[in-house]
């Protein structure tokens, strides 16, 4: 009964090499950067919130990769909480978007540019 082979999903090596981890971290960082670009450039409110979800997703990949690297479950547990926050954020943000759309009949973020802090 080789417990480690069972846990390491058959043909995967028991512990991930740091260089393999680097690939996943680069993928996660690139996805985060793409989400950030989208958030800064797009003017549609809904697409802007989609881009924040993209950034959440990138953080999730990094957490799962670290969880695999250190062979423990805390990273996966944290992704569950990331999912919770993403769901709460989607509910609130979309309610706000519907409210803003009713006021101006437009999803353009620039419409609200007079709201300066």
């Amino acid at each position, binding site marked *: *009964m080789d417990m480690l082979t069972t846990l390491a999903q058959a043909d995967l090596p028991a512990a991930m090499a740091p260089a393999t981890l680097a690939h*996943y971290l680069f993928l996660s960082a*690139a996805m985060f950067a793409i989400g950030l670009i989208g958030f*800064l*450039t797009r003017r549609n409110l809904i697409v802007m919130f989609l881009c924040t979800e993209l950034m959440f997703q990138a953080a999730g990949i990094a957490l*799962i990769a670290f969880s*695999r690297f250190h062979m423990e479950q805390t990273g996966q547990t944290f992704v569950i909480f990331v999912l919770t926050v993403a769901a709460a954020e989607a509910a609130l943000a979309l309610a706000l978007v519907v409210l803003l759309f009713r006021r101006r009949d437009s999803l353009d973020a*620039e419409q609200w540019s007079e709201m300066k802090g």
Partner: protein
Amino acid sequence: MTEIVSPYLLFIGLLIAGIGVAVAIPRRRVNPQAIGAVIAGGGLGLVLLSLALTNPDAIPNLHFYVFGVIALGSSLRVITHPRPVYAALFFILTILSSCGLYVILAAEFLAFALVIIYAGAILITYLFVIMLATQAPSEDRIEVLAEYDVAGREPVFAVTASFVLLGALTALLFTGSATLESDAAPGDEAARSMAVMELMPGKAERLLREQGAIGKKDMVVKVHAAEGVAEVQTSEALTTVPLPEGVEPTNVELVGFDLLAEHPGTIEIAGIILLMAMVGATVLARRQSELEDEAKRRASEAIAARGGLTADAVIADTDGEAG
């Protein structure tokens, strides 16, 4: 040698990818999105190549590249597609391919949870809001798009800022990955899963009963994972039975025990966050007409106070007039 070459290869790759992304962002007149996407893909490919060259012994398996390319390509399409509905659909594709990555990384439970929660629930909500909050195209010009969807704002600035951030983050990977040591000794993981196994005497009992090793009325009292035996209380005496095959904890059980044993307070906080989001969304999305009803009620109360009638009588009166 590789440590000197790779960061420059990385920066060149990121520069090319940045130019590609800047070209691919939607703008008003000339819009060569496909060319931009190809350039961006080439740049990111160069970076992945330089990562693979840094340490050729430890490249990930082929599936990583398949899912990674789909994930990055569709996330690029999320931010460049002028129609929000298509952007949301491409985001679902991003989610599905990152689920593939989760499966490679031995996180099956979260891969399924992600498909159900993200692709199934959150994105459908997004699609509904997009359908609610987008003007229908006029009959004579079906292909017309809203101005704010076709023209990005400050693409060059945004791409520069994001790719400088990405370069700084990933340059650390090259220099720092040598010192990045996994603290997971093989023994650690085995010990942890054994500890979880000892918390599950019910599972051992069920498996032993299925395999006929113990009788119907026998009970597993305690699991000694280190010795590989289970203490069984039979009707006569306390005996030990070797643990059955397949009693090792699965991914779901490991995540579940980690969630409930290590982070019980965080679950409570997550519950409060969800409750607050639900209440907040309900309050925000409430129809304006309810406020008008409230104003009507206050006005009728004022009339009632003057005329000596009760508020309900005034409402009944006005309702009768209306009917």
